[in-house]
């Protein structure tokens, strides 16, 4: 029988199974095939909170979501059209999110009484009406896989391991993914242990052919490639992009990257990624705690390296005092905060944007610091470079805000040409700057002070946390000097406004009433919802802030030029407070604090609501 092929513009697929089932790998493989095929895509893995919750339980479910399309898309999608559930727990954990009428592909073999109980199902959801209205496909994935590989003589346990590759094959057929991408990868990966290799190839083909040949599936789907700018692409996650951005900044400044950190979810990925790049001259140090990490990075900066430290909320709290020292020492330093759901330990594996005001004000005294936020996984690369540029040019610590969602999700990235990246000039002090003397706090036109590193002849100086006399840097308790230094530190950071791009407004019809203003990782969701709203024939403008301190020069004008301003944030309205306080515009907040990224449909509804008021 020949099968129908149905065309779709965009599809959201979610692979879900036990932590041990290899869902992340399955997702990655499907992503690569999809990338090569040429769809635009966005992905989001969803790990269980516990290291290894008991197998078969809802807490042990690990999932991977991908949205891919023939047009460009901006988020991993809200509601899966297709759910692959490797066991009952996966079905139970994920069903709620699947679109009504969506496709469910279940591993029939896993729906045993025992597994149903482990998943907390009183009755079998396949027969008690729970799945009514969905398109349910039950596939005995385990047994078919075992049969497919039996002649290879693996143990049953080993054989069963390949069932995720079977699922991959099946879904690859369903959406016409190029098989060679996966097969080539298997070939590279398992070149040595050929038996496992054979098993996986067999499982993959079995899955693909199962879709092709059995009656079960009437239709497959086609999602045409998306038109994109020519060039070389790769898929990149936020964590990877941020780490690489730091390496790029080091290369473009000729500085050695010194990353000191204390492990914490979700920031540990940066430490891990950078620890693998020692041949780039990258120094990484796992400190005894976040305070030490910050001080080690600061010491490294004093010695002439690009000192960087990374952490998440709880660690940011602990670094506060050291950041204050960095502010007054006026040394270049980058601090990465991969935000997670707080307060306190909160929900360590969940996303949130609730550290903005901490980044702005979380230090005693008047202690101003530039703040930069990444807006997409790939943009983490640019954000890291921008932070380093400001830190080195202005001799100041700079905070980069990322979050769990950005760090873990990935998107295709048009790989930049290294030579096109900004050049950063460390401009080390080389000699006296005041006649025969060297004054460590004599400022340049940007109000930045000289960076004189130990080992340089004749530039010896002492700096510390006590208030310093303008110019000399000697300890000073003089009232006017303190007022002046306080003003200078503030003016230096504010002065960056002349050195950054104005905020770009996307207002196609250029006369929208409502501006949706966001920052950081909500970019995709905001732009996508705006599109939907426009598709409904309404006018809406959007803008996304990358620079949160200082604000871009044109921001005041921008927010004042719209009748309504809506600020969606994954917090209780932190940017809103800053914008209202600074510009006195009655910006209203749309807040979501669920540990989840912003969803298109929620925001779309809110936008429409606000516009109709």
């Amino acid at each position, binding site marked *: 029988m020949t099968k129908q092929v149905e065309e779709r513009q965009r599809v959201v697929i979610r692979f879900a199974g036990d932590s041990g089932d290899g869902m992340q790998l399955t997702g990655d493989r499907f992503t*690569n095939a999809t*990338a*090569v095929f*040429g769809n635009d895509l966005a992905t989001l893995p969803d790990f269980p909170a516990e290291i290894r919750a008991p197998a078969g339980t809802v807490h042990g479910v690990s999932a991977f979501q991908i949205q891919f399309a023939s047009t460009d898309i901006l988020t991993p999608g809200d509601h899966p059209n297709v759910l692959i559930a490797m066991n009952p727990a996966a079905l139970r954990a994920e069903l709620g999110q699947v679109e009504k009428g969506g496709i469910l592909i279940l591993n029939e073999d896993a729906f045993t009484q025992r597994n149903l109980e482990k998943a907390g199902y009183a009755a079998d959801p396949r027969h008690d009406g729970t799945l009514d209205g969905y398109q349910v496909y039950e596939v005995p994935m385990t047994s078919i896989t075992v049969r497919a590989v039996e002649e290879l003589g693996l143990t049953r346990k080993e054989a069963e391991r390949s069932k995720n590759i079977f699922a991959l094959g099946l879904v690859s057929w369903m959406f016409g993914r190029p098989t060679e991408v996966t097969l080539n990868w298997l070939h590279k990966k398992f070149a040595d242990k050929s038996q496992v290799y054979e098993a996986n190839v067999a499982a993959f083909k079995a899955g693909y052919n199962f879709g092709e040949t059995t009656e079960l599936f009437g239709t497959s789907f086609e999602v045409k*490639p998306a*038109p*994109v*700018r*020519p060039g*070389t*692409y*790769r898929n990149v996650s936020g964590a990877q992009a941020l780490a*690489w951005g730091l*390496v790029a900044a080091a290369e473009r400044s000729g500085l*050695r990257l*010194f990353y*000191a950190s204390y492990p914490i979810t979700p920031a540990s990925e940066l430490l891990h990624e950078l620890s693998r*790049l*020692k*041949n*780039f*001259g*990258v*120094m990484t*140090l796992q*400190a*005894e*705690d976040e*305070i*030490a990490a910050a*001080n*080690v*990075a600061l*010491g*490294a*900066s*004093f*010695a002439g*390296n690009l000192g960087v430290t990374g952490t998440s909320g709880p660690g940011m709290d602990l670094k506060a*005092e*050291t950041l204050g020292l960095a502010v007054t*020492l006026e040394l270049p330093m980058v601090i990465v905060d991969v935000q997670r759901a707080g307060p306190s330990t909160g929900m360590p594996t969940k996303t949130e944007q609730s550290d903005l005001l901490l980044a702005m004000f979380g230090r005693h005294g008047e202690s101003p610091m530039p703040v930069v936020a990444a807006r997409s996984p790939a943009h983490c690369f640019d954000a890291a470079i921008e932070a380093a540029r400001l830190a080195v040019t202005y001799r100041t610590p700079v905070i980069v805000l990322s979050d769990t969602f950005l760090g873990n999700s990935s998107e295709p990235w048009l*790989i*930049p040409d*290294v030579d096109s990246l900004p050049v950063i000039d460390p401009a080390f002090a080389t000699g006296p700057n005041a006649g025969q003397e060297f004054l460590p706090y004599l400022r340049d036109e940007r109000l930045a002070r000289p960076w004189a*590193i*130990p*080992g*340089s*002849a*004749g530039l*010896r*100086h*002492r*700096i*510390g*946390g*006590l208030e310093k006399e303008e110019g000399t840097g*000697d*300890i000073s308790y003089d009232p006017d000097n303190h007022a002046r230094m306080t003003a200078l530190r503030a003016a230096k950071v504010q002065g960056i406004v002349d050195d950054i791009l104005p905020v770009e407004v996307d207002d196609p019809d250029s006369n929208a009433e409502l501006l949706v203003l966001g920052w950081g990782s909500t970019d995709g969701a905001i732009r996508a919802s705006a599109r939907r709203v426009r598709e409904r024939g309404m006018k809406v403008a959007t803008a996304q802030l990358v620079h949160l301190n200082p604000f871009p020069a044109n921001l005041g004008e921008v927010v004042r030029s719209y009748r309504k301003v809506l600020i969606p944030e994954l917090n209780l309205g932190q940017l809103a407070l800053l914008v209202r306080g600074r510009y006195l515009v009655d910006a209203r907040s749309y807040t979501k604090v669920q540990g989840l990224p912003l969803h298109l449909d929620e925001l779309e509804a809110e936008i429409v609501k606000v516009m109709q008021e």
Partner: protein
Amino acid sequence: MSANDSANDDGGTAAGTLTKKDFTSDQEVRWCPGCGDYAILATVQGFMPELGIEPDRTVFVSGIGCSGRFTYYMDTYGVHGIHGRAPAIATGIATANPDLSIWVVTGDGDGLSIGGNHLIHALRRNVNLTILMFNNQIYGLTKGQYSPTSALGTRAPSTPTGSIDHPLNPISLALGAGATFVARAADTDAKLMGKILEEAYKHKGAVFIEMLQNCPVFNDGVWEGVKDDPKGKQIKLEQGKPLVFADGTKGIALGAGMKPEIVDVVGGDTSKLLVHDEHGSQLYAHLLAQLVQPDFPMPMGVLYRQEKPTYDQLANAQIQDAIEKQGAGDLGKLLYSGMTWEVGADGTRH
């Protein structure tokens, strides 16, 4: 800290030709009259030239406390950090540039109270730096509260009826943390301090030196019990010599149940005494650590030393290895690593 192999390159003043003045900054010294810190400062400033250290390659890092002001008085590079974190800042500097000579000045509060954790981790990592702890058994700068080394029952503003926490033994703690060089000197004993600084300077790795420092304002004479009678209350440690004091009339032996005990030396027979070996076992060093006033005379000099690779050496070596093995990193290659795909102007892929 790292001995300075190259005295003359990039403009550093040649060693030998230097004097105390070269290490003395223009800042007016602001400790209380009679503070033990003056003596230590003078000794350090005076001795640095003899070591042939270049000021341009020397960094002092201190925390907060009266002791912390030390940094401002040395005409070297210096960071006066925040309270308790100096060892961490110094670790960053040392690892970033192993050619520098790095000195950490801390106090019993800065180093053992708020900064205790950084201290033990710097020691266990064996970072190449020298830690001078000014132990005056009190918080001087904040006007006299008791410190982790204050004797039980110390009356201070925060403990008007006497402190109730058992004091830390800085040397035991340092040894427990795995320090590779441990020494002790009194603030006023310039000669001994000079000897120790010289050895410390030669040592590659983390050096911990306890300075018995007098705070005439808030804890005057707390070390008098040791300093007023050097012969009777101090054991001058000498490599290979028995542990004797009181003009050799008394000595230290290992008693029953592994307890140190004081024995009389009759007719110069020191056979029963312990013999000092700074390269000796950790256990022996722990024994020395337990010799504290008032029950015992206190060992002065180098108590313990051991050669171990330093953190900064190993860290930088790993980078060199990586470069040799994988070749110097190429950013372009990195960005193109893993799976990539081309999109042609016509939208074609490959």
